[in-house]
């Protein structure tokens, strides 16, 4: 087994009395594409926010490679090599598509800027299927195109770990196929990805491994087919009668 790129150790996040993430631990290996799944309100997005630094943990530890990143500010974690997309797409509304993507590369890694950043961002927009749309204001783009821009922005950071928060949500069936292909391609290039997702087809097609959460607790961790057949997981999603 490859060494763990990301280790989450007994991670806990409490909002007052509500424990949104309850001592969850899991590892992600280099090059893996894992699905973080579970019913609504099970703490998946909170988990992602803890990894990206949007939230500070109550206790527990997260390591990226050898460095501890839990408790760092999001801008520090971004520099350590984690990039993300957001559950409700967050593009920079006053800017063009290419400027949005340049934002992803200008402040991390070797801080690519100027002509090189333009070339890189142009190539990434082409990559996500937005050839020729470089100078379109993102505020005029459709939802899926904004999601593409957001993905290109995350890729522009050349992250060691990519976090996708329901990136496929809200797409129509044909867009969904394109989206699944795109994520598959990115994964095959060796990029390590954690995706929070509700679209089961995507999970089955893409994920080598799944971590399942329910009410803040990890209830299963294994290959997609095993995990989705697990009675506990079925119970969490559908209730007792179907287990």
């Amino acid at each position, binding site marked *: 087994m490859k060494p763990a790129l990301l280790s989450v150790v007994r991670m806990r996040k409490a909002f007052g009395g509500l424990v949104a993430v309850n001592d969850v631990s899991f590892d992600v290996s280099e090059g893996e594409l894992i699905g973080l799944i579970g019913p609504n309100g099970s703490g998946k997005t909170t988990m992602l926010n803890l990894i*990206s*630094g*949007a939230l500070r943990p109550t206790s527990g530890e997260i390591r990226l490679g050898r460095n501890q990143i839990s408790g760092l*500010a*999001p*801008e520090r974690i*971004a*520099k350590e090599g984690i*990039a*993300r997309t*957001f559950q409700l797409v*967050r593009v*920079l*509304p*006053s*800017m063009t598509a290419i*400027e949005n993507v*340049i*934002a*992803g590369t*200008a*402040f*991390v890694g070797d*801080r690519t*800027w*100027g*002509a090189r*950043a*333009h070339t890189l961002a142009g190539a990434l927009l082409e990559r996500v299927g937005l050839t020729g749309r470089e100078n379109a*204001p993102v*505020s*005029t783009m459709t939802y899926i195109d904004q999601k593409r821009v957001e993905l290109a*922005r995350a890729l522009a*950071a050349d992250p060691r770990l990519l976090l996708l928060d329901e990136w496929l949500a809200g797409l129509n069936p044909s867009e969904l196929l394109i989206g699944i292909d795109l994520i598959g391609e990115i994964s095959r290039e060796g990029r390590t990805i954690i995706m929070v997702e509700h679209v089961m087809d995507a999970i089955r097609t893409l994920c080598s491994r799944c971590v399942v959460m329910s009410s803040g607790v990890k209830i299963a961790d294994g290959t997609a087919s095993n995990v989705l057949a697990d009675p506990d997981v079925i119970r969490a999603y559908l209730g007792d009668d179907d287990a």
Partner: protein
Amino acid sequence: MTGIHRDEMLGLICGGVALALLSLLPLLTEGFYLSFGVNLVLYAALSTAWSLFSGPTRFVSLASAAFFGIGTYSVALWLDALPFVVLIAIAALASAALAALIGAATLRLSGVYFVIFTLGLTELIRQIVSWSQSRFAHKMGLYVFTDFTEGDLYWMLLALTAATFSVGWLINRSRLGFALRIIGDDETVARHVGIATARAKIVLFMISGAFAGIAGAIMAPRYAYIEPQAAFNPMISFMVVIMALLGGTRRLWGPLVGVVPFTVVMELIAARFPNESLIVVGIAFLAIVYVLPSGVTGRIECLRERLRRSLGTGVDAPGCGKIEGRA
């Protein structure tokens, strides 16, 4: 972002020509018009410096008078000991240091606290300077006698305005300027793409404060006798904010559009109704916030965008008539 666009080239040429024409003023006139010209370029420099920071971040600063006063006192305290150029450098550094302190203390807070803090701090500094002068120096003010003519001061302020513009233009093209646009759009995204948002804001506030401090230093010889009440006059802060908001802060040259008419109006008021000037400032402030929330330039751009959209080719104009200040 790369290279110089045609619009920018045009702006550069227009700016250069305007600068050359304006620099002729002291050769053509003295007395009233020159003194009016000094006021005009002073507020042009201060408002442009103010909007360097407050434009993109939308934090309304009332600390202009603090920077201005610190600049004035830098000159008054050491005029006999050091050359004027060094004093200007001291003014810039001291103001930048103050800006760094204010920024570190408040920029993580929301905009309202920032406004109150900057206003209160200016008052505090004024009181401290008054107190320490009467306590240790046993006098109310300091004399500043130099050989500078009104024309010299005018030229220096004009050069300062040009420098403020150039720096603003360079910032807009730099990573820092880009970072601030991102922060203005979405601070959460900004942090997640690796921008240390607090530091970026502090750096910009320091640059903005340094220019206001230099303006104060240049103005010191004109006052001849420096008192805390004049050097740290909160009216300076209010005037700067009103002029910049009237012009609009979305473009670098926006504040200028507000400076010219407002300086003229204030000059007329001061001449005819000297006791009512505060009322005018108050009414103007209300009128701007309610009628022209994004300033004259913002309004013009908004109308142009609406025209283009009604012709069927344009895009959504974000925030037509939206309140610009976060406070």
